[in-house]
C-alpha cells in the first residue's frame, strides 16, 4: 500500500446541538438531543468504485473507530461490533450511532484505490481457498480462467470454484485402504442399511503394504517387524525393495522411515491431501467442517485405528459441497463421534437406581453443531428480549429432555474387511430398543415429539426427527454462516455478509442457482467466497478487516510454495504433534471446542475494539515462535527433526527437501526475488518498509555461488514468514 488514507468532508450530524465545531479533520458533537434514541450522522453518497470510505467516531480525537463504511459499488452499512443502522438514500446516507454521555467526534476517511494486479488478486483468493498457493497454481488459474479485474466478485473466481467442486474427491479412507491391509477387498459399490461401504475399496497390490494397520489386536507395520509373510507384507513392495529404492539411506535410516507412532498414520494421509490433492477447496472445506464437528485424539481412543478416524473425516470430504443435514445425520450415528461425546451406550433412565441418560451429545449438538447458545437474527445479531437481554436457545431442562433422545445407540457388530482392534468403528451405530427412551419429548418451541413406536424404526424416527427440528431452527443459517466465514475469509463479517451466506444456506441457492434445499453447502461456500466482503481489494484499507491465518496453513503454505518434496521411502510426510508445537495439527483438537472459539478476543487492539480473532487463541509466546522456527528450519534444513522445540518430525535426517529451482532462477536479482515471494506468499501485500528491509538484508549477503543465493532465498522466506503481511488475510 503506497498511500495513506485521507480524511475528507463534509459530514452532517442531525440533532439539537449545543455546539458544533468543524475542524479540518472532524465534526465535534458536544451534546445532542436527549429525546432522540441515537446520534444521526449524514454522509454524502459518492462514487467509491475501487475505494473505501469509512465513518469513524472518537471521544478523544486520538483513537478512532469505524462504525460504518462504503466500498466499491456497495452502499453504506454499519460495521462490527455495533453495526449501527444505516439508511441509504440516493444522494446521502444516515448512520444512527448509539448515544453516550461523552463528547463524540465523527470524521469521514477515504482510502486510496487499492491497486493489485490480477495475479495478486488470484493469490489472495487462493490463500483463502487452498492450503497455500504455489506460483504454478497462480499461473494455472490465469491460463484456465484469465485474470480478474480489481472489482471482480464472481466471474473467474466462480469458474474456479465450479471446477474445484467437480474435481474427483481425495478420500482419506480410500487412500488408507489401498495401501494397507493386503486382504482388503472392494465393497465400495455395496449399499446396505447399517453399513458404511463408502470408500470401502480394495487393496491395491501395485502399492503393496505401505501403511501400518490393525487386524484384531495385531499391529502390522510396513517394516521387518510385520508378522505377515515377507517383510512388509505378502504382496507389493517389501522393505528390502524399499531400501533399494533409496540407496542413499543406510539401513538404520531406512528402518526409521517406516517406523513411526501409530497415531501418525492418519496424519500422513491428511498431509498427503493438503500437499498434493487436486481438490484443494474440498479439502479446505473438509478441514473447516472437521473444526465444526470436532473430534480429537485427546478425549478419544484408539489413535492408531486409522480407518476409524479417516472414515469419520471422509464424512466432511464427501459432503463438503453436499448438504449440512446429511452431515448432521452421519456425524450423529458415527460411532467415533458416539464415543467422543458419549452418546454411544447411553441408556434410558433407570429410576430404581437413579441412572439418567448421558447429556453430553444432547448439549453439544445444540451448542456447537447447530443452534448455539443464543437466539440470532438472520444476520447473526443477537435477538434481545423486551428488557434488552439476549435470549438463550435452551436451558438445562431441555438438555435433560433431549438426552433421552440419544439413547439406545450401540456399536454395529464386527464384520470382516474393515480395520479393527476387536470392534466395529466404521459402520453407523445401531439401536438396542430396550435401551431407548421412546417417551414423548417437549421441544424448544413447546411442541411435542413422539411418543414413538418401540421399534428400531421408532428410535430412528425419534433421533432423526429431532435432528430435523434442530436443522430447521432459524439459528442454524447465521450460526453456521459466521463459522464458515471465519474459517475462510475474515474474522468479523458484517451482518450483511452473514445474512448473505445464511440466506444461501437457508434457501439452498446462490444467486439463483442450487438445489433449493436448506443446508446446501455448495451454495453456502460460494456465498462465503464470492461476496464483495470476501473479494474486495478496497477493504484492505479497513483496519478491522481480515483475519489471522491458521498456524497450520501458515506452515503448509511455505512448504507448498517451496515445492517441498518428500524423501521418505514412500513419498509421505511424517509430521508429529504439531498441535503441541504451534497450536494446531490434524486430529489434534484439544477439546470439542476446537483449537479456538469463534468469539475469542486477544488482549490489545482487537479486544479494545470488541472484535473477535479466533486464531489468536492458540497463538502465544511459545507457539508463535515455534511456528517461525519450524518454517525457518524447513527452509534451511528440510523436513527434519531437531532438539526440543524445533522437533517437527521424529527424525534426525531430512524427510523432505525444498525445491529451489524456481527461486534460484530469480535470486540473482533481489527485487525480482522479492516480487516473486510477495506475490506467492503475501498476495502483493508486502509493505514498502518490509520490502526495503529485506532488500537491505539480502543485498548485504554474499552472492558468489549457488549456495549463497540459496541462503538469500532461505533468509528471505524465514523473515517473510514472521511478517503480518504473510500471516494475515486482509
Amino acid at each position: 500500500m503506497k498511500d495513506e488514507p485521507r480524511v475528507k468532508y463534509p459530514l452532517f450530524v442531525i440533532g439539537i446541538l449545543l455546539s458544533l465545531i468543524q475542524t479540518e479533520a472532524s465534526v465535534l458533537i458536544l451534546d445532542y438531543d436527549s429525546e432522540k434514541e441515537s446520534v444521526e450522522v449524514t454522509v454524502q453518497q459518492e462514487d467509491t468504485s475501487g475505494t473505501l470510505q469509512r465513518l469513524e467516531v472518537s471521544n478523544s480525537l486520538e483513537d478512532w473507530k469505524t462504525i460504518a463504511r462504503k466500498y466499491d459499488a456497495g452502499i453504506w452499512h454499519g460495521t462490527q461490533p455495533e453495526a449501527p443502522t444505516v439508511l441509504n438514500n440516493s444522494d446521502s446516507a444516515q448512520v444512527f450511532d448509539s448515544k453516550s454521555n461523552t463528547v463524540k467526534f465523527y470524521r469521514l476517511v477515504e482510502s486510496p484505490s487499492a491497486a493489485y494486479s490480477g495475479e495478486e488478486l488470484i493469490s489472495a483468493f487462493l490463500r483463502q481457498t487452498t492450503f497455500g498457493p504455489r506460483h504454478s497454481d497462480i499461473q494455472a488459474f490465469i491460463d484456465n480462467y484469465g485474470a480478474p479485474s480489481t472489482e471482480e466478485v464472481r466471474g473467474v473466481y466462480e469458474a474456479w470454484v465450479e471446477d474445484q467442486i467437480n474435481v474427483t474427491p481425495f478420500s482419506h479412507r480410500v487412500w488408507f485402504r489401498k495401501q494397507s491391509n493386503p486382504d482388503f477387498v472392494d465393497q465400495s459399490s455395496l449399499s446396505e442399511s447399517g453399513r458404511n461401504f463408502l470408500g470401502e475399496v480394495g487393496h491395491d497390490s501395485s502399492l503393496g503394504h505401505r501403511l501400518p494397520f490393525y487386524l484384531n489386536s495385531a499391529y502390522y507395520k510396513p517394516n521387518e517387524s510385520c508378522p505377515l509373510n515377507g517383510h512388509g507384507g505378502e504382496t507389493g513392495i517389501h522393505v528390502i525393495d524399499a531400501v533399494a529404492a533409496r540407496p542413499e539411506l543406510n539401513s538404520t535410516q531406512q528402518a526409521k522411515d517406516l517406523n513411526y507412532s501409530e497415531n501418525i498414520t492418519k496424519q500422513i494421509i491428511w498431509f498427503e491431501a493438503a500437499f498434493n490433492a487436486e481438490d484443494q477447496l474440498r479439502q479446505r472445506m473438509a478441514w473447516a467442517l472437521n473444526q465444526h464437528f470436532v473430534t480429537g485424539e485427546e478425549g478419544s481412543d484408539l489413535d492408531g485405528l486409522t480407518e476409524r478416524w479417516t472414515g469419520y473425516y471422509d464424512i466432511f470430504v464427501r459432503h463438503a459441497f453436499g448438504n449440512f443435514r446429511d452431515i448432521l445425520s452421519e456425524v450423529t450415528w458415527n460411532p467415533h463421534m458416539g464415543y467422543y461425546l458419549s452418546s454411544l451406550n447411553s441408556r434410558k433412565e433407570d429410576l430404581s437406581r437413579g441412572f439418567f441418560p448421558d447429556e453430553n451429545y444432547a448439549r453439544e449438538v445444540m451448542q456447537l453443531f447447530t443452534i448455539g447458545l443464543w437466539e440470532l437474527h438472520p444476520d447473526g445479531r443477537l435477538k434481545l428480549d423486551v428488557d434488552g437481554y439476549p435470549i438463550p436457545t435452551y436451558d438445562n431442562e431441555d438438555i435433560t429432555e433431549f438426552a433421552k433422545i440419544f439413547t439406545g445407540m450401540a456399536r454395529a457388530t464386527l464384520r470382516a474387511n474393515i480395520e479393527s482392534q476387536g470392534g466395529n468403528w466404521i459402520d453407523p451405530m445401531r439401536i438396542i430398543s430396550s435401551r431407548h427412551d421412546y417417551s414423548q419429548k417437549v421441544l424448544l418451541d413447546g411442541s411435542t415429539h413422539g411418543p414413538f413406536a418401540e421399534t428400531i424404526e421408532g428410535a430412528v424416527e425419534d433421533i432423526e426427527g429431532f435432528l430435523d427440528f434442530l436443522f430447521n431452527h432459524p439459528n442454524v443459517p447465521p450460526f453456521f454462516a459466521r463459522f464458515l466465514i471465519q474459517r475462510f475469509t475474515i474474522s468479523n463479517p458484517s451482518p450483511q455478509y452473514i445474512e448473505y451466506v445464511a440466506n444461501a444456506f437457508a434457501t439452498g441457492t446462490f444467486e439463483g442457482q442450487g438445489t433449493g434445499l436448506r443446508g446446501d453447502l455448495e451454495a453456502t461456500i460460494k456465498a462465503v467466497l464470492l461476496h464483495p466482503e470476501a473479494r474486495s481489494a478496497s477493504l484492505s484499507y479497513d483496519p478491522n478487516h481480515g483475519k489471522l491465518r491458521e498456524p497450520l496453513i501458515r506452515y503448509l503454505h511455505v512448504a507448498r510454495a517451496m515445492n517441498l518434496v518428500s524423501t521418505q521411502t514412500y513419498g509421505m510426510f511424517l509430521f508429529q504433534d504439531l498441535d503441541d508445537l504451534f497450536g494446531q495439527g490434524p486430529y489434534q483438537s484439544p477439546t470439542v471446542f476446537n483449537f479456538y472459539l469463534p468469539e475469542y478476543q486477544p488482549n490489545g487492539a482487537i479486544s479494545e475494539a470488541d472484535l473477535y480473532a479466533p486464531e489468536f487463541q492458540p497463538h502465544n509466546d511459545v507457539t508463535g515462535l515455534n511456528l517461525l522456527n519450524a518454517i525457518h528450519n524447513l527452509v534451511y534444513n528440510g523436513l527434519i527433526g531437531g532438539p526440543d522445540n524445533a522437533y517437527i518430525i521424529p527424525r534426525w535426517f531430512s524427510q523432505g527437501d525444498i525445491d529451489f529451482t524456481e527461486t534460484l532462477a530469480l535470486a540473482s536479482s533481489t527485487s525480482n526475488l522479492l516480487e516473486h515471494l510477495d506475490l506467492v506468499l503475501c498476495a502483493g501485500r508486502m509493505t514498502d518498509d518490509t520490502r526495503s528491509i529485506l532488500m537491505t538484508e539480502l543485498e548485504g549477503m554474499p552472492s558468489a555461488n549457488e549456495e549463497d543465493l540459496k541462503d538469500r532465498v532461505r533468509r528471505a522466506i524465514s523473515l517473510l514468514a514472521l511478517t503480518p503481511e504473510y500471516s494475515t488475510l486482509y
Partner: protein
Amino acid sequence: MKPQRKISRRRFIHEANCAAVGSISLFSSLLSLRLTAGAVSANSTFPDYKALVCLFLGGGNDSFNMLIPRQVDAHADYVTARGGLYNDPHQSGGLAIPTEELLPIQSAGQSISEFGLHPNMPFLQSLYNQGNCAFVANVGTLIEPTTLAQYNSNEVKLPAGLFSHSDQKVHWQTIVPQVRGAGPKGWAGRMAEVMDQANQSSSIAMNISLSGNNVLQSGFGTVPYITDYKGAVSLNANDSDLFSQTAVNSLLSQHYKNIYQKTLGESTRKAIDSSVAFKDAVDPIKTTTSFPSSQTGKRLAMISRIMQARMGLGMERQIFFIRRGGWDHHSGILEKQPDLLAEVDEALEAFWTELELLGLQDNVVLYTASDFGRTLTSNGTGSDHAWGGNQFLMGGGVNGGKIYGQFPTLLGGSDYDLGRGRLLPSTSVDAYTAELASWFGVPPSELTTVIPNAHNFFDPTSNPYPLGILNNLVT
C-alpha cells in the same frame, strides 16, 4: 421452561450504573482499575516472595469421587446417590467407591468428621494430615448467595450459561459470572495489575502460564508470559543459521494499522524480547527432585525452576497457571479419573519435595479449580455437567487438615440438589479467591478490584479471609 435471566454486557453495565443490587461496586471498581494500578505497592513493600499456582482441571472434575464422606450413614447416602458401588457384583453402572478403599481423613467443623480421599491420592492424604493441605467443599460460581428456593423461583441472579464448559470455566477465572465471556478479565490478571510494582525490575509478566493463553491471567493491560515445560522458546535458538537480528527488529518495528497485523506484530516482538530474559534466568536451573514425566509433572517441574529463578528474573510475586485437561468424564469415569488423580498426586508429591528442598513451601500456595462439579447420579459409565464441587489448596501457609465450607449431604432431594445430583454451591468462588488474593498481598481496600462481587458474600474490609484458610500469614 423457566424464564432465564442471562445478562449481556450492555445490560450489566446499565444495571451497574443504576446501582442495582449486587452490582454496586462492580462497574466502578473495574472502571477505576487503571487508575489504581500499582496503588498497592506505592505504600507497601514485598519483603517475602510469594507464588500462587492455579492447577485447572479442565473439563469438570468429578470431585465427589475425590473427597468422599466416609462416616457410615453419609457414605451410604453417597453410594445411593451414585447409583451403587462401582464393584457391586450384582449390578453395574454405580460410581461409588467403597469405604474400605478410601484413604481416611478427618475434619472438624462439618456435620460429620470422617472423610476419605480417592485411593490414588496417598500423597494428598499425608499432606492433609501434616496440616499443609485443606479442602473447600461444594464451591462454585455464584453472583450472590443462592438457596434452592431462590434458584427455582428466579429470585436471584444466576451465572450466565450455567452447566456449559465454555461459560463456567470462564466464570471461574473472571469471577464475574453475570457477564458472559472474558470481558471483565481474569482475577489474577486484575490482581497483577493492582500489584504491578512488586516486580519492578522484571521484564517478565507476573503471570506466567505453562498452558497457553487463558482468561485467569489476562488483565486489562497485561497478558501472561507463556512458556512451556521445555523452557523458554526463543527465535531459532536451536540452529546455527540464526535469524538476522537487525532485520527481525526492523520488521517488527513497523507500525501496522490493521488490527490483526498490529496484534500479531506486537505479540511476536514481546515473545522475542521476553524469551531472552527468561532463557538467561531459567535455563541454567535444574530441579533436584525427579519429577514424573506426566503433563502435570513436567509443568510443575518447570514452575519450580522458574520459582528458583525469581531473583534472576527480578520477581517478588509470581502467579502460575497449568491446565490439565481430560476431566470431562461423561463415560469411562472409573477407568479414566483414577489415572488423572494419580497423575496429580504424584506430580504434587515431587513438587512439594522440591519446594521443601528450596525452602519455599511457606511461600507457595497451589490451588485447584475446574469448570464445575459433576452430577452425583450416574449415566451408566460416567457423570454429567453440574455446578458445585470440591477443590483443594496446598502450601505451608494453609491452615490445613480441615475441610472448609459446608460439605453437603449427598442424598437426592437435599437443600442443595437441583435434580440429578446437580449441587447448588454452598460456598462461592469469591470467598475461595479472597483467601488466595489476601494471602498474596492484596489489601482489603483493593479486594473488590480483584473480586468485584465480594460484597455480596462477605465484607472484604473486615473479613478479607472469609473462610479462614490462609490467614496465618507467613512473616
